[in-house]
């Protein structure tokens, strides 16, 4: 069963196979070859760098933050890559160390972030990014955009020249120190032990924020986006108010929590907890809402696209098929009139009465549906269809889609295979329903079906896929075609023999 060439510019029955597509094959080959060559160079370079690294022991220049596989600054991933370890392992070690060292790990991490040059991973491998075999194009790009992620310098090397940034870092960290002194006056060893190292952290973060390469800044912004609530595109002032409120709640809540042991109130930890949660909701709420809304929108868009595809399939099966038929029977006015009238009726009933063309509205069981397909194909195309059914079951929307796909397969076989008879086999088992449409006609070459031919792609494959079914097509030029359509059954509606 060759593909259905609707509106039929291509001659149709007399044409044994489809004209092959534009000669794109050799270009593809050449392209592939060229890539292959570059890949080989690339690999040789990497190999050389590897050997060099091995001989020289620990080559600290190869230590680079991995901007491709980063969670925060890519320090852990960079270390892992440097020593050939699993990044996850390194990260776990980092976390353990961070807990163990009582807050002293964070500043060290940030210093590492500041000092270790970036660029690992993004260009493929640390050796490559180190300038051993940087592709020229990448080099040009890096030169054109100063401070790009791949230039392999550390953030510190830029931050050194950023006098305003250094001032700012000092200011912020001193402010933080003042806060710590105040907090320390109120209580509490927790803030004292965990807080003070963070003075360095804050300073480092300010410098990183101001001087990180562009690629990293984008990544950072994504990282802190939830904190800003992505409010930048709505109302900046409300964001500021919101964040301010959240910070107050957070401060009070933290304070409450931390002062527990000095107080007798049992309610305090609970209150602190509630306040902190409230702060989190105020901070992140809009972000969560936005994500939820995006998900809903995405689902709606997908539903619309599927609906559209279903409609396209239906129009193809009805209107386009009839138009093709009319073109082929142009020498028989009576027949053409009859076809046009039937199509008009069908279209009207679809548009104005909501009865989809080819739908099994009055058909309640699978066997009835199969018989309908047989009758329609025999009446319209004059090709006998031999039907064998095993078992029966009531129809649901999935099985209607199965029948519609089978109808399309039968119509294709009737129109294009040239076979004297088409066999249609339907078997209902407990798990699924299988329809097999088979002809001994001329067959076709699946590879030569043009992409815009909807018959196979949309009416059969698309339809089946949308409803969770599977399609397998066996065909070869001169050997006929077999289309197997399988649709899983809903466990609810399983009965045998129409009982």
């Amino acid at each position, binding site marked *: 069963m060759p593909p259905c060439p609707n509106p039929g510019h291509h001659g149709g029955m007399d044409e044994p196979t489809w004209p092959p597509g534009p000669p794109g094959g050799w270009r593809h080959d050449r392209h592939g070859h060229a890539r292959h060559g570059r890949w080989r160079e690339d690999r040789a370079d990497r190999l050389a760098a590897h050997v060099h690294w091995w001989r020289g022991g620990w080559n600290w220049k190869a230590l680079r933050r991995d901007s491709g596989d980063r969670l925060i600054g890519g320090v852990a991933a960079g270390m892992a890559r440097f020593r050939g370890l699993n990044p996850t392992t390194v990260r776990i070690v980092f976390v353990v160390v961070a807990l163990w060292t009582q807050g002293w790990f964070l500043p060290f991490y940030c210093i590492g972030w500041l000092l270790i040059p970036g660029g690992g991973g993004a260009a493929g491998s640390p050796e490559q990014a180190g300038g051993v075999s940087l592709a020229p194009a990448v080099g040009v790009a890096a030169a054109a955009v100063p401070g790009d992620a791949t230039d392999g310098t550390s953030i510190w090397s830029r931050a050194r020249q950023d006098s305003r940034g250094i001032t700012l870092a000092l200011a912020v960290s001193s402010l933080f120190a003042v806060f710590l002194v105040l907090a320390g006056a109120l209580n509490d060893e927790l803030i004292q032990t965990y807080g003070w190292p963070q003075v360095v952290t804050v300073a480092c973060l300010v410098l990183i924020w101001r001087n990180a390469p562009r690629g990293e800044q984008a990544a950072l912004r994504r990282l802190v986006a939830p904190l800003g609530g992505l409010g930048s595109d709505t109302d900046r002032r409300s964001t500021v108010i919101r964040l301010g409120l959240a910070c107050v709640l957070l401060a009070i809540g933290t304070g409450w929590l931390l002062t527990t042991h000095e107080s007798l109130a049992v309610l305090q930890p609970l209150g602190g907890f509630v306040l902190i949660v409230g702060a989190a909701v105020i901070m992140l709420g809009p972000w969560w809402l936005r994500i939820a809304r995006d998900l809903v929108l995405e689902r709606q868009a997908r539903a619309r696209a599927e609906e559209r595809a279903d409609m396209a399939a239906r129009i193809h099966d009805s209107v386009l098929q009839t138009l093709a038929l009319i073109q082929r029977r142009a020498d028989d006015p009576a027949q053409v009139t009859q076809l046009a009238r039937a199509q008009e009726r069908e279209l009207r009933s679809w548009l104005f009465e909501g009865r989809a063309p080819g739908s099994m509205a009055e058909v309640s069981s699978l066997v009835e549906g199969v018989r309908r397909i047989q009758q329609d194909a025999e009446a319209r195309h004059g090709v006998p269809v031999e039907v064998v059914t095993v078992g029966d079951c009531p129809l649901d929307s999935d099985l209607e889609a199965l029948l519609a796909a089978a109808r399309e397969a039968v119509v294709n076989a009737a129109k294009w295979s040239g076979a004297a008879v088409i066999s249609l*086999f339907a078997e209902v088992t407990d798990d699924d329903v299988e329809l097999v449409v088979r002809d001994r006609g001329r067959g076709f070459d699946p590879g030569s079906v043009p992409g815009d031919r909807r018959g196979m792609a949309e009416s059969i494959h698309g339809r089946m896929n949308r409803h969770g079914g599977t399609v397998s097509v066996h065909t070869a030029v001169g050997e006929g075609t077999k289309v197997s359509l399988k649709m899983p059954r809903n466990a609810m509606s399983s009965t*045998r*023999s129409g009982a």
Partner: protein
Amino acid sequence: MSATVPRVVLVDDHGIFRSGVRAELGSAVDVVGEADDVAPAIALIEQAQPDVVLLDVHLPGGGGGKVVSAVRERWPEVRFLALSASDAPEDVIGVIRAGARGYVTKTISTAELLDAIRRVASGDAVFSHRLAGFVLDAFASLPDSPGGGAGGPAAVKPSFDPELDQLTSREREVLRLIAQGYTYKEIARELYISVKTVETHVSSVLRKLQLSSRHQLTRWATERRLA
């Protein structure tokens, strides 16, 4: 059975159909007689001793199955090929269970009919795609539940014999391909087995169909009649 042309008797109540078949078969077979009802058919077969009887499923004096069961007791070497336009499944299964070696529809082409006659004459079974569908359907029901059966004479023995009452997966595969219109040769190629093996599977299915005592077959036929 022999290298010579098979000797054939036609049993059909439509004279026009008989003469049509006779003309189509031509000299490829030796048509030794025609009958139009049950009683004359039995008499003719006993007298002519043909290799193959082409038997219409529907005869005025009763189903074709009557002819088969009457003759088979005394002349087991006479083979029957059922031929029908109606395809009422319970009739078809009835004739097969009575002892016919195969079933083809009247829409069959001359070449295929000749092939079927030769096959039956040599002792093989002939399944049309429709018969294969019926058999799959009949055997597809769940195995007998003990004590669950007041459905006709066959239900007297509710015993379940897996040897007879179930199709093997290979047999099912073969039947499914037959039902999809495959020839034996195509089936052999599809399943990577020899044509002889395909024939063996089909004969085995036929045996099960004829000997199985499961009341499912009867009940299935009853349900089909109601539907």
